[in-house]
């Protein structure tokens, strides 16, 4: 077998077509054991389709794919037995209790009743749901349901955890709690693949990521590498009164690169304060100015000419 010893996922020229629409158009991916790997991209970039192929619930149209050294087309159930999946939309049984959801799901993995009973208690602790253990799922908050879904995905002690948009729709507090739990799993050595359209999530969680757009990978690296490669150290954000807003071309000489957004201009520069001073000296009067570090959002803007969340 031509497989890297500890490669958990290896895809070459992976494609997925739905009728006339090609959602994934030739993707190469390698995920090593123990790393947290991200797919960053806007809605419709092909992230979820790629995840579903890796999760063995969507046959590939073309290309090769190996998960845990096996082919999803041949060994789907055996692969699914050893991975954990957190889907984009919660699919808990809302009419069962929190504990029952964990237990019955564990049974699908061929685990004994005694085993899932003990495991559920342990996972309730992890998901901070012990005091809600015997409540029905329906009335739980979005964040609690999400934590339960993640706990459920861990019931078989997966070698690979797939998280599709794990924090979409959650409030900031719930997101941070979730990130903390995922970080803890990472420290425990659980390999994770995450799709997200939040650049802060990707920066927080991922060791390595690919930026996807229109079904293809447009860049690959660690968050820091990508920022270094595709952006400057700092960004100066300027907001103007629409009537007094200068053309991007006029202000361009002051920075390495300028991006024009509907509500502001982004000036890419090594030293934001210095550029800010130059802008003032040149006679431009913005309503507000903000200097910040470059982020993956800027990488994405550079690569695709669009923002991530429209």
């Amino acid at each position, binding site marked *: 077998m031509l497989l890297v010893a500890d490669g958990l996922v290896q895809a070459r020229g992976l494609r997925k077509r739905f009728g006339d629409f090609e959602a994934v158009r030739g993707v190469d991916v390698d995920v090593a054991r123990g790393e947290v790997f991200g797919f960053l991209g806007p809605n419709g970039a092909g992230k979820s389709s790629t995840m579903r192929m890796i999760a063995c*619930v969507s046959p590939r149209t073309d290309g090769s794919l190996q998960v845990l050294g096996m082919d999803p087309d041949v060994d789907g*159930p055996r692969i699914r037995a050893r991975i954990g999946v957190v889907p984009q939309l919660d699919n808990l049984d809302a*009419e069962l209790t929190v504990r029952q959801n964990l237990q019955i799901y564990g049974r699908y993995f061929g685990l004994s009743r005694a085993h899932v009973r003990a495991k559920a208690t342990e996972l309730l602790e992890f998901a901070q749901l012990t005091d809600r253990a015997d409540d029905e799922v329906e009335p739980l908050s979005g964040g609690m349901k999400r934590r339960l879904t993640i706990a459920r995905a861990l019931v078989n002690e997966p070698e690979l955890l797939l998280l599709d948009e794990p924090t979409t729709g959650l409030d900031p507090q719930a997101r941070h709690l979730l990130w903390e739990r995922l970080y803890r799993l990472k420290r425990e050595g659980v390999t994770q693949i995450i799709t997200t359209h939040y650049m802060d999530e990707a920066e927080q969680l991922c060791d390595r990521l690919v930026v996807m757009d229109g079904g293809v990978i447009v860049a690959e690296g660690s968050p820091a590498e990508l920022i270094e490669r595709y952006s400057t150290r700092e960004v100066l954000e300027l907001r103007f009164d629409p009537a007094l807003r200068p053309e991007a071309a006029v202000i361009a000489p002051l920075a390495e690169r300028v991006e024009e957004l509907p509500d502001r201009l982004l000036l890419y520069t090594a030293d934001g304060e210095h550029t800010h001073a130059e802008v003032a000296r040149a006679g431009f009067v913005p309503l507000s100015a903000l200097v910040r570090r470059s982020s993956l959002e800027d990488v994405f803007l550079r690569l695709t000419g669009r923002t991530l969340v429209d």
Partner: protein
Amino acid sequence: MSELASESSAQREPAVSAALQGAGPRSTGRAPGPWGGILLVVEHFWTWYRRNWRATAVSSVLQPLLFLLAFGVGFGSLVAGTGSAAEATGGVDYLVWLAPALLAVSTVQSAAFESTYPVLSGFKWQRFYHAMAASPISPAQVALGHLVWVAAKMAGSGAIYVIVIALFGGVGSAGIVVSLLAAVLAGAAVAALVTAFSATRENEGAAFNALFRFVVIPMTLFSGTFFPVDRLPEWVQPLAFVSPLWHGTELARAAALDRWQPLAALGHLAYLVALLALGIALSTRFFARRLVR
């Protein structure tokens, strides 16, 4: 997960050292066999039922009870002693003649209901079918687990119904037990076909209403439940012959009254088994199409 598994750390030690050697800890999960997977899906529904049986038990006993009261006792007293009724029932008490047919009606009706909204919920509202399909369970096992569960539930509530009928004096012989099996077979055939239909629905829309209004209710009225099919105009009779309920009713009645006609019985049985096979083939296929795409 060292912190998580602190209680069973002794057991986890080898896995950790394996991880250091580069092999990584091995998941505890494995794929259940073809039958095992179906039974695990049934276990899911059973878990749900243990929590929620009270709500469903009332409706699953009450409705047949109302039928029994209205037609068996009320309507039955009206036709009691009339020559035409005696001719139609072959001389037995109307309630005894009606009871096995009501058994078939109640299983077929609940089979149809259990295979509409609950199936769409598994795909669309609660979406737990998707969760099952993400585990080692296959879409076909999800579909078959649902059907086995519906059949088991029908057998259970049918058995209770038999007891209720007996209390009203509607049981003529021990053959009613075979009637129950016939009723469950007819119900399973209907459940399989309706499940296949529901698996193709994106929205409830008007489809389920139409199904009940134009299929289930006419089937209830014209399948020889309350009067023999030969009392209908000849042009209506073919409707009964395609109805799985009619075939189930004929079998159930033959068993309860011990009036077997071997060739006809074989025909009814073959028809129901064929419908069941068709329904299973379609529903497993449609489940796969919807869950794996």
